[in-house]
């Protein structure tokens, strides 16, 4: 391959060992046709650690004193943190115009709203949701929290910082930029403080049900373009976790290319005017605090 000369090739055995190790830790499945991508994304790690081949890297992940930190770095390198503000506008329209009014009615007594952005990456989705809540004008004076979680600590640090470049804003209407961001440098903006006040972040491995104990039961879960990383059993585990966490009648919003066909019939499919979303039935079982 051009540009790749002088770098170690990942053998089929090394690929399998690394792939299975990552899968065992977090359920992320690197498909067989992704060997090249895995190799490319891990090359910088070999370089940084002074290792000569991927077998040595595998043993580093297994046996080095720094193995835990390195595994996180490897997972970070292997997952694409592609996200931006106001991604998938049709779904966001459905959320704003049809889901939020329902939630306002349902929670009118408690005036409390919880939204979970599962796999939030660098925070664009969680902040977008908060901006939509603010735009709706329905939740002023409410106890609102949009909680973003991700397995990568590095992206969470970026999310908390709340500063972004032009790429993150490529689908954001100019009026929203003017309303919800402040300029902090050339080509850099920061999310306004009143939006940040509604958003929190935390580290979470979606494959670890115990780790979800700290997440308050949400009214809505955004889990968009996250399950693409998992195989069927791992997806089913995530869906079970989301199902258990959601309040009865709560909504699940997936990415536009994702659905629950052959994964779960636990959720109802709800036909909204602008989009299809999933909902946990009112009499749905499960539930953890």
């Amino acid at each position, binding site marked *: *391959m051009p*540009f790749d000369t002088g770098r170690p090739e990942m053998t089929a*055995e090394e690929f399998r060992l690394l792939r299975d190790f990552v899968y065992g830790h977090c359920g992320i499945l690197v498909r067989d046709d992704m060997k090249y991508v895995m190799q490319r994304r891990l090359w910088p790690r070999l370089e940084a650690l002074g290792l000569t081949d991927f077998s040595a890297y595998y043993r580093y992940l297994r*046996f080095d004193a720094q193995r835990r930190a390195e595994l996180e770095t490897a997972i970070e390198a292997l997952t694409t943190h*592609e996200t931006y503000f106001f991604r998938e506008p049709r779904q966001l329209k459905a959320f704003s115009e049809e889901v939020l009014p329902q939630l306002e009615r349902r929670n009118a007594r408690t005036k409390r709203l919880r939204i979970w952005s599962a796999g939030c990456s*660098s925070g664009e989705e969680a902040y977008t949701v908060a901006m939509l809540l603010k735009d709706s004008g329905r939740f002023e004076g409410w106890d609102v929290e949009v909680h973003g979680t991700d397995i990568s600590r590095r992206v969470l640090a970026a999310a908390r910082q709340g500063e972004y470049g032009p790429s993150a804003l490529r689908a954001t209407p100019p009026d929203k930029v003017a309303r919800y961001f402040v300029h902090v440098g050339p080509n850099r903006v920061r999310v306004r403080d009143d939006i940040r006040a509604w958003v929190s972040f935390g580290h979470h491995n979606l494959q670890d049900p115990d780790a979800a104990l700290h997440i308050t039961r949400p009214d809505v879960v955004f889990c968009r373009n996250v399950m693409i990383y998992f195989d069927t059993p791992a997806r089913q585990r995530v869906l079970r976790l989301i199902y258990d966490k959601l309040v009865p009648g709560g909504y699940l919003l997936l990415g536009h290319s994702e659905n629950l066909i052959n994964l779960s019939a636990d959720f109802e499919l709800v036909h909204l005017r602008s989009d299809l979303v999933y909902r946990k039935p009112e009499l749905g079982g499960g539930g953890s605090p």
Partner: protein
Amino acid sequence: MMEEGRNAEEARYRALLELDVSAAGARETLVAGLHDESWRVRRAAADGLTRVPERDKVVERLISVLGERDETGARNAAAESLAGMGAEAVGPLVRLLGHVDPDQRKFAADILGQLGQPQAEDALVQAMMQDTDLNVRVAAAEALGQVGGKVAARALERILYDPEPLLQLSALESLAALRHPPPLPEVVRLLGNPTLKRSAYRVLGLIPQVAATELVCRGLGAESRSTREAALVALGTQASLAEPSLRPEMEAAVRLALKRLPEAVGWVASALESDDIELKAGALVAAAALREPQLAPLVAEVAQEERLMPEVMRTLAYFGPETGRELLASMDRLSFPAREVAGHVLVELVDATFVPELVQMLDWGEVDLKAVAVQALGRTSSLEAVEPLAQLLSHPELAGPAVRALVTLAAHFPKQVVQALESALEHGAEPVVLSALVRVGGTAMLPLVRRTAREASVPLRATAVEVLAAVDPVGGLELARQSLTDESPRVRTAAVRVLGQVGDKTMAGLLKQALADEALEVRLAALDAVGECGALERVADLEALVPHPDGAIAYRAVQALARLGALRDEVLRKAVGHGDHEVVKAALMAGAASSEGVSLAVGLLGHASWDVRAAAARVLGDSGGPECLPATRAALAAEMDSLARRALVDAVERLSGR
């Protein structure tokens, strides 16, 4: 009312989920569920039926549901359940292919296709060739595309001569699915048929020959967009299948064809932006032939389909240096995956003229973009790049890449780089700066390193210990001895590493203390160091650690014993019984040359882990005698794992030659 209905549905759904499938009457309860008005309840019923005991009866019952003409939902749910039944459903479904009702025969063919079981091949071939109903024949042809087999492929080729276009189309699609193209002249005939043209291009893509590429190129010149797109898809498939030696000739043919098509840049751009991954793959091949820099950002965006990343890299490599500037200018608008590949390419294409834009990117870019800019600055061979890189030497994430970039620039500007590194160190830079300083400045930096070894900063102290040993082994060893008493485990670990790297067997006493250190990282480093410096006195300590449940410790103990040449057979046997497969493999490799090791490798051909079995096969291939051949052959016959099989095939071949 609607809410009540939903609650009732949920109650029925839950009832089926909670049903004891072994209980009397469960089968009929679930069959009733197949007839429910709710798809969720039907799904739960279909899933439940796959778990009911006496599956033969379940299969027959499901087949009876397929015959309920007015119950579309139930029939589809029954079909779904049958498709989940596996091989047990094949016999009854093959019998259903002989039913008087063509509707039922079609159902049977469809489900057999979903089951994908090879036992259905002959029956489906017969249905495709002889059934009196066209829909059944088409369903059988489609099913054969999922079932596969040599008989199926031959029959599908024969069907290409059938007068029914729909049947021809299904056969062609199935041949494409089986990746079994008919002979090229046959494909040429089908390309002339408007109904079959698109599918004919699909199979044409499966023929990685230049003659086939030339046919594809004719399609690229077609007026119809659908034909052009079909040709592009074929081009992508051909490129993925062609031997590397054939690629240049294929690409030359494409280039020649596209040169004659001035509007090609436009429709290749559209294809790069389409949602069809196969079309994108073909468009990449066309873009590589066109080499238009303005296509570069679109090409980079194709990396959002991660499996196309190699082809994206290959395509961008064909583009000239102007591509670098095009990518740099669009970097802020690219998606994350596109930025990733654009960054890789940019780094290869930059020169000194890129410095101002790269420095700007350090101001506004996210960390991933900054890392690209840093790496690229190191490749510019420009003095102007030194200062901006030096400013990053205290950045926790970018100091490492910045140091590497500065070391690259030091080939041209050693003095300026040393100055920049020294200045950064005085102002609290990351420890990697110290290593780089010695690498670039050499022994002249020793006083600075010694000073740094007395610093308060733990990372700097630790780095100083290792760096000093690298340039002054005697002084380094002395510092390492002192540092073994440092209060920080990180510094002690560095000191132990130095003992291993530059010390000799006289380090055994010091390493005994290190092996008992309270910090795991120090103990692990000590295990490595014992092997490295030849501290034979510590063999007993190592042997005691081989059965340690922590694989990190056991692995290192085995490795160290092997390096010392002190791995006794008894210890080797203990090591191959370890629960961690990496320890077992390390022992296998360590004992490979000994007769005991070979004998243990034979036993490990039946190990639970595929990688241990593969490693054992390699040991036998390297060191086994002819007496190992029967066991290796037997293991090969039983082996199901592809990688272990590969190693066994190689071992059998090598053993057979002895």
